[in-house]
């Protein structure tokens, strides 16, 4: 296999592995804050227990997240040294700020985890808020570098490849920074809400739960549904802005996402199907007339550029249409699920039937799939560039022939760790079931 391809697979799988844990690490502290606040307002010890149990899970997840984040942070310099050479000159700032955000998260996480019972309530609350702020700031700052790769700004590059006219803040506030950072943050919050909903739904599907246990899980499910509903709706609204940003700054990526070949006014939106190069259109798709033009420019007659405006060698792989659809499809589905469940429970005032719990049980894994396909879409949709229109992936990657050896080792590590984390979480919560904690609390 080509060294560049192997370097991409190694880095892509590292990021794909890390993002699972990182997403949970960004969202879970916010859920813990909500539980702490509800405990303070309602004086219901169930919420305190919830915060405590989520913190335990968070500690396990965070260990893998920190370790894999360290891998990603170091590996990017090793695998894409020519890319980092430009990064170091132009967009170093968010990288460094991210470390301090990470440090704040690490320090306060230890404090919240190992010293909560020795702290006055105010300080304990400040600790968990700092954890959440540190985690979210980390995500936003790293996303800044990713956004800059998509819409580079703040420098010029001479034909021989040297960087000139660096404007650090123009690079920092590059055109897609705002929308992309919000997208990553909201979708992480949303995903964790649905993961919590999944766990609660799976528990509620069991027979023979005590009333206390049942109430505990119902409360968790309610928090998750409301938070998930709000966040998924907000993600969708922001997703619309992201599409408009693509239309303005990255029309090639938007064209690939939608499988649009010819530049079109009144462009339809193709949902589903796959992009066929021979037929120059998306096959087996449902088309919504005018919808793409409307999404891109808020007007039905917006002109949307097609792939044929660009040389074919600069097209991203056409399958990004599928990745894009999976992300958007799951996102939309989860909005419906969350609002329907809330309607069922709080307007109709009925108990959740088994089939609805079963749907909720898969919502968490689905949201995680949307996160993964979203990242894949954003990174593969940028190909053949690492920095759009500046640096090709083939030039950015290492020439070292040892990449294949490392690829085998790391893939084994990731698969093993996925299983072990699952095993450890299961074994821990099996030995410490809710019923035991509830009995201890009363």
């Amino acid at each position, binding site marked *: 296999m080509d060294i560049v391809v192997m370097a991409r697979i190694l880095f892509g799988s590292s990021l794909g592995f890390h993002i699972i844990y990182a997403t949970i690490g960004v969202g879970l502290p916010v859920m813990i804050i909500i539980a702490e606040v509800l405990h303070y307002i309602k004086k219901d010890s169930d919420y305190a227990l919830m915060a405590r149990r989520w913190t*335990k899970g968070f*500690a*396990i997840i*965070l*260990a*893998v997240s*920190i*370790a894999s984040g*360290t*891998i990603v*942070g*170091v590996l990017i*310099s*090793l*695998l894409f*040294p*020519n890319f*980092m*050479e*430009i990064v*170091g*000159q*132009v967009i*170093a*700032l968010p*990288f*460094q*700020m991210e*470390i*301090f955000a*990470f*440090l*704040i998260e*690490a*320090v306060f996480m*230890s*404090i919240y*985890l*190992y*010293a909560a019972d*020795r*702290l006055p309530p105010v300080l304990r609350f400040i600790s968990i808020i*700092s954890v959440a702020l540190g985690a979210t700031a980390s995500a936003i700052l790293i996303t800044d570098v990713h956004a800059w790769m998509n819409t580079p700004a703040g420098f010029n590059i001479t034909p021989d490849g040297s*960087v000139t006219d*660096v404007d*650090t803040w123009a690079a920092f506030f590059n055109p897609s920074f705002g929308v992309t950072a919000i997208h990553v943050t909201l979708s992480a919050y949303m995903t964790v809400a649905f993961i919590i909903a999944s766990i609660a739904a799976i528990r509620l599907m069991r027979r023979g739960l005590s009333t206390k246990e049942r109430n505990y899980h119902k409360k968790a499910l309610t928090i998750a549904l409301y938070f998930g509903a709000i966040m998924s709706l907000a993600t969708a609204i922001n997703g619309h802005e992201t599409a408009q940003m693509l239309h303005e700054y990255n029309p090639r990526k938007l064209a690939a996402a939608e499988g649009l070949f010819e530049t079109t006014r009144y462009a339809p939106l193709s949902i589903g199907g796959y992009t066929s190069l021979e037929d120059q259109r998306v096959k087996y798709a449902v088309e919504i007339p005018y919808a793409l033009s409307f999404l891109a420019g808020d007007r039905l007659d917006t002109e949307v550029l097609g792939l044929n405006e660009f040389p074919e060698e600069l097209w991203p792989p056409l399958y990004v249409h599928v990745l894009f659809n999976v992300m958007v499809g799951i996102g939309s589905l989860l909005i419906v699920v969350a609002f329907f469940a809330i309607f069922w429970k709080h307007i109709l005032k009925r108990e959740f039937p088994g089939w609805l719990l079963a749907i909720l049980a898969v919502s968490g894994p689905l949201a995680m799939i949307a996160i993964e396909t979203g990242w894949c879409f954003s990174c593969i949709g940028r190909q053949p560039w690492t920095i759009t229109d500046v640096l090709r992936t083939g030039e950015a990657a*290492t*020439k*070292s022939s*040892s*990449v294949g*050896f*490392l690829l085998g*080792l*790391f893939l084994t*590590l990731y698969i093993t*760790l996925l299983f072990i984390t699952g095993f*450890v979480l299961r*074994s*821990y919560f099996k030995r410490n079931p809710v019923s035991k904690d509830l009995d201890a609390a009363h």
Partner: protein
Amino acid sequence: MEASTLAITILWSLLFIYSILGSLDFGAGFWGMIYGKNDQTSASQIANRFLSPTWEVTNVFLVIFVVSVVTFFPFATTLLGSILLVPVGIGLLLLTIRTTFMVFEHHTQKYRELMRLTSGFSGLIIPALLVSILPITLGGFVDFKNDLPVLHYAELITHPTLYMHIAFGLSTELFISAVFLMDYSKEADDWSAYQTFRKHAIWLGPVSIAIAMLTIGTFPTEANWIVENIEDNWLWFGLSVFFFIIGYTLLFIKKRDGVRGWSRLAVTAIILQYGIAIYAYGSAHLPYLVYPHLTVTEGFTNPSTFYPMLIVYGVGFGILIPAFYLFWRLFLKDRRYLKQP
């Protein structure tokens, strides 16, 4: 001071901080493993009590160091990335295994023994890998083939200096951690652990200093430049040895309550010993990052990016000072934490 000199000074400071924190971290992991099954002393509990809240913070300092290298010296990434891909890659792999197993061990009943051994032993292998980077930068092990930098593994692996560097790294790691954990045990009023760590500090001290001196003798001939610089810097290295002698002597002096060892002062002296040695070594390493291929000025970023980064470092650490203070109060000072059953 030139901007690039300032940058390399900050980098060496971060290296100093990480080498101390990393020594404590990996050392504590190792001692925790060694005494894990020993009922005579609570050395293992003490080591783990220190390790649990601190490993995340230590890990961040490793990342700070790497990010600082890349952002201060972006023109060094191509060379460093190519030659260090495999050693650093394997180091990352082991670090991940160590970190995750260490945390998993606390949360599961099964396979505890396996996880304990894995995380303990990787606490020796990772520092060995990290310290192996030092001889690579001295000259003789890196060449260019078709414009691509290559590391000569065969020559490196058969060269005695690699093993002396590793021995130096490990003896230092264990010495620093033993002296520190001795003081930590005192803070926890745990005298059995105190004596255990004191015993190890007493034999490790002379061993580590002897190995450090012998290591310089094994430098490859290509590294004569740095040996000359080290000889020119003899005053600083002499001062470092002086602080070692002070710190080591303090391990034997009786206090008023009859217990031997002024642990707090000893830790301070030993940290000063290594601080001075690291800066002296760092200045002897100038002007090269990797001899003879890359100098500090060649690797340095443009000043217009550098100064905003300096502000970020200043503000970042400034914000963190109260957090570090709270952290220290809770985990290194608070007897309710130190003396838990």
